[in-house]
């Protein structure tokens, strides 16, 4: 058996100075942490008001999504069609989907505005004719909008993984309009609403822009108005396929102002947006001063307490680590299995300035055994992110997922405040992090 008294972390952990690339770990078998706060495709799909989801898959795979819907109290907006062995053998997959979806719709007490039909890995591999399927469904239900969605984890390591694909399909019902509203813009591709105090949101509000965001839409009509906005804005990497798709299909212009903790990059993004819309640039200097003040307060409170960060908290965990390290915080570990290309500058700088920073995998098989066995319970650790909180077994953690809707200097101020709160107030880690899709209140 594995020696827990003298653990061998090789393969699951590396100092950043020794990391050869943004993919520092070898892929193999994968462990799954009990930290479940990140949203899955069911949670994200439920953002679409007045829609109904129908999953077509083997019952073993359906179990996960059915219970996701049950836990979020959304069973009335969710149905399934089970694929059985005979469907695979008989080659009647198209008929199964068409008849199954039709049966579900006929039994619904109220017809939905839109139906998201999720096909799965099995349809991908059987060469199921989805064009035929959707054509027949649209024929049979002309008053309902259908779109193709995908529960195909087998595509996880391709150019079209399920999560960005889901975020893209969410906007597939937006109409193409000739006349756009000059004073409206969309925020695209988020699961959480962006804080109103965020730098660019304040700048847009200051210029009397209306900001439309699916996370705040409460009706189908409200969602549809997004089609007439002048510009799509996104800041998460997972939103990029949606941006380009909307440009190609509807001709909607977009700007990508990536989430960042680098002051220069934030300033650049603010400037780019203000120039694009020809509006007055918000005073980044004042915002930066506020962020500095917040970080200073947090540092004085936290002192030398070790900090661990994971990728579920932010798409730029290295960027956040660099910011905190540069301000004197004792960041000792970052959890992620790989890093996006956007993190390359921070990766390179950290290798030079903080070479001892540890990178630790999250899915490596050793992660199911070693981290909790290695925890020193007499040491106070502050975690940023649920996976870091679980691995370090700490009640002191910032429960932030997918950047929590924080952006820019204001976002940094918020994080600093959350660090103070996390440091002073214990959380029920076990209870919180096991909740699937944290914050989904559909």
């Amino acid at each position, binding site marked *: 058996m594995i020696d827990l008294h003298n653990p061998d972390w090789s393969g699951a952990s590396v100092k950043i100075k020794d990391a050869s690339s943004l993919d520092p770990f070898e892929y*193999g078998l*994968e462990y*799954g942490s009990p930290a479940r706060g990140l949203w899955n495709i069911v949670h994200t799909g439920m953002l679409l008001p007045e829609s109904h989801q129908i999953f077509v898959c083997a019952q073993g795979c359906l179990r996960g999504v059915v219970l996701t819907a049950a836990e979020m109290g959304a069973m009335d907006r969710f149905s399934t069609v089970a694929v059985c062995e005979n469907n*695979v053998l008989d080659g009647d997959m198209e008929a199964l989907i068409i008849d199954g979806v039709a049966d579900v719709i006929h039994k619904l007490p109220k017809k939905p505005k839109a139906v998201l039909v999720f096909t799965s*890995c099995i349809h991908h591999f059987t060469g199921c004719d989805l064009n035929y399927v959707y054509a027949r469904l649209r024929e049979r239900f002309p008053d309902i909008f259908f779109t193709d969605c995908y529960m*195909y984890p087998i*595509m996880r390591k391709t150019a079209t993984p399920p999560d960005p694909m889901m975020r893209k399909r969410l906007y597939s019902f937006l109409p193409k309009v000739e006349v756009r509203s000059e004073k409206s813009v969309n925020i695209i591709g988020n699961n959480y609403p962006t804080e109103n105090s965020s730098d660019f949101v304040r700048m847009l509000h200051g210029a009397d822009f209306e900001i439309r965001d699916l996370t705040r839409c409460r009706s189908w009509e409200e969602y549809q108005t997004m089609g007439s906005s002048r510009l799509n804005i996104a800041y998460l990497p997972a939103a990029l396929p949606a941006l380009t798709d909307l440009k190609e299909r509807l001709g909607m212009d977009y700007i990508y102002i990536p989430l960042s903790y680098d002051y220069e990059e934030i300033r650049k993004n603010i400037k780019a947006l203000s120039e694009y819309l020809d509006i007055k640039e918000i005073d980044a200097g004042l915002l930066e001063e506020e962020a500095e003040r917040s970080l200073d307060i947090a540092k004085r409170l936290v002192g030398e307490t070790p900090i661990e960060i994971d990728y579920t908290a932010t798409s730029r965990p290295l960027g956040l680590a660099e910011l905190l390290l540069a301000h004197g915080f004792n960041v000792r570990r970052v959890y992620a299995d790989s890093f996006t290309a956007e993190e390359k500058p921070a990766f390179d700088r950290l290798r030079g300035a903080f070479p001892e920073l540890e990178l630790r995998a999250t899915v490596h*098989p050793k992660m*199911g055994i070693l981290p909790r066995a290695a925890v020193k319970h007499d040491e106070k650790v502050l975690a940023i992110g649920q996976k870091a909180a679980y691995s370090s077994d700490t009640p002191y953690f910032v429960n932030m997922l997918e950047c929590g809707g924080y952006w820019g200097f204001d976002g940094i101020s918020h994080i600093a405040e959350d660090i103070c709160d996390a440091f002073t107030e214990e959380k029920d880690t076990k209870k919180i992090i*096991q909740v699937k899709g944290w914050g989904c209140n559909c």
Partner: protein
Amino acid sequence: MHDASGCNSTYNTHDEPRWYDMPSMVFISALAEVDAILGDDAKLIDDICRAAEELRPRFIAIAGTPIPMMMGTDFGGVAHLIEQRTGIPTFGFATNGMNSYNKGATMALAAVARRFCPPDSEVKRDAAAGDAISVNLLGVTPLDFSVTGNVEAMQKSFADAGFRVNSCWAMGDSWERLISAGKADVNVVVSSCGIGLAEVLREKYRIPAVTGIPVGEAAQKELFADIRAAAESGRDIDISAPDAAGASFVVIGEPVQSASIARALRRDLGIESVSVISPLDFPDEDMIFARLKNAGTVIADPLYRPAVPAGCRFIELPHEGYSGRTFRDRIPLIMGEHFNDWMKKEMSL
């Protein structure tokens, strides 16, 4: 799990309630599109061998999902190669995600017993055990019994009735206790997950089996009497469940649990018009709706509530194999007299 992903988010939330607190070596193979297209079993074998060499488990089990079924993965062959390379006993199960959990669980428990329980000639029966009849409890899984006290209450029911629990497959017992199953006098199949295991132990040790869980004050006595009779005769005893046509009282759920509850309803509460629906495989919703059309009372997992007609009394009995952790805090204690207390409370509401 030979799977792309997805399976892991289910077993670490809904299938394995001990996931947070107990180190567990369940992994996915992270099957990718290109590996599936190329049929790259070598990657699977290499990845498993590398992890096994690092973690040194007692044994390895590989189970399948829909895409390996379509690829025609030879799980037996893959297991054989891994065992050759690592020297670690390895099993391959050609599951495909299209059947209920009890199919896979019964295969897994049976395989472990077949491989690791010693031959009858090597089993040393405990002379100090006295006259107490010893039992193996087969099919004790978190999916069937959760972690809310029913396993402990069931063991207590057996102990209070004078039985000695020799092993509990497979919650809470040590490896050594499990593989000593050959010492027991009777196998008690407490869920459908234990059926295959009972067959193996019968083959190996000629231990007879009785199926049921100790539910209800009077009904459990009947079960205990059957166990004593089986110990004496060495023969299996099959206890039939009430199945009244057009019954007004319907129990829906796992077959062994539901049949035991139905017997307790009849024996302890005098309810004659009882029937059981156990839709574990190929659940036909229309059939269930039709059978519930005239039901007066239904005991079932809360997810069945929409299937119950208006005016019908619905008694919630959450089951992790059905609704996972969703209603765990509402799972009642149903072992022994707890069942009578629970029913009294539910029927008075």
